[in-house]
């Protein structure tokens, strides 16, 4: 009896689905998956920034207007998120994220000052942004190095 190669997928609600597959397949490429995941993460943050800017300001101790947060955080994250969701190989969107990360780091560093009562949250956010920035830079560098012959 020939061996049947299978793949198991998780479904919403905890169920699983097992499908037959072929043994002739390539190893998964990591960078596009990381890039797609970063895009989904950006969409989530973008929605938070656009729909609940006051909540963002409260969480971080920001004193700007909600509209400023919507434009500089929500819309920006949403734009790069949508770009990567539609095409995770788009290096320009990854570099745009890196530029946004630099801006976020500068703002969050300012918010870690002792006079900010939410400095603990700001430190936490800074740590997350630094980690995500590392992923953004790695993904952007690797995606920029891909040799494209169809453009």
């Amino acid at each position, binding site marked *: 009896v020939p061996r049947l190669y299978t793949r198991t997928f998780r479904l919403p609600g905890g169920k699983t689905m097992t499908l037959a597959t072929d043994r002739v397949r390539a190893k998964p490429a990591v960078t*596009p998956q990381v890039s797609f995941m970063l895009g989904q993460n950006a969409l989530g943050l973008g929605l938070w920034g656009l729909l609940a800017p006051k909540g963002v300001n409260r969480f971080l101790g920001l004193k700007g207007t909600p509209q400023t947060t919507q434009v500089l955080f929500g819309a920006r994250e949403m734009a790069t998120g949508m770009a990567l969701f539609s095409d995770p190989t788009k290096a320009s969107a990854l570099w745009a994220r890196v530029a946004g990360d630099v801006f976020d780091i500068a703002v969050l560093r300012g918010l870690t000052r002792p006079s900010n009562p939410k400095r603990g949250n700001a430190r936490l956010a800074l740590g997350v942004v630094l980690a995500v920035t590392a992923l953004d830079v790695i993904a952007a560098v690797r995606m920029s190095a891909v040799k494209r012959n169809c453009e």
Partner: protein
Amino acid sequence: MKAICWQGKKDLRCEEVPDPIIEDPKDAIIRVTSTCICGSDLHLMNGFVPTMCVGDVMGHEPMGEVVEVGAEAKAKGLKVGDRVVVPFQMTCGECEQCQAGNYSVCQVTNRNADLAKAFFGDTTAGLFGYSHITGGYAGGQAEYMRVPYAATTLIKVPQTGADEKYLFLSDILPTGWQAAAFADIKPTDTVAVWGCGPVGLFTIQSALVQGAKRVIAIDDVPERLAKARAWAPRFWTAARPRSSQR
């Protein structure tokens, strides 16, 4: 071996994959000598087809030479050295639909038929390089490929002549032919074909072979219209959609 692999939306790569082996006595291994790229490969590339998995090998329009044959396929007359075209669908030749000539809905060859039935209400045949809902089989945009149900799936072609003479039997010529056949063409009929891409061009030729009195080819791409003229010089009438609407 090298193969074109799907690594996610808009991400196709030429990568190293394991060589195919005989996994079942009905299998054959083909050395791929030519392959088309299908318009429907764009659906996979753009992420519109669910159940593609990272690492899947693409391609469903190849042809080549048989280099290894399983015992059952050999018993049915397939042998090493045969020159063959690989259709996009595989056929068992024994189920009710295959017996009726409806090979594209073979009830046996899709290994993931339960999923296809849940999605569509019924299943297609197993397809090469076209997601897991059609069986999860590796495709033919590769140096070698495994063909299950090889004796009933493969089309043997003569050893002479360029690959391009036979290659289009894999998908686009039968698609164009069937489009014309569905029109039930009579000798007095004038047939209009909208779109002169590869399938449209084969539909034009098929309509003429099936007896159409005249074929009107419609497109707004000059190069495609020129091809239509070249392929059917005595019968073409070309019109641009916008001017024909006025």
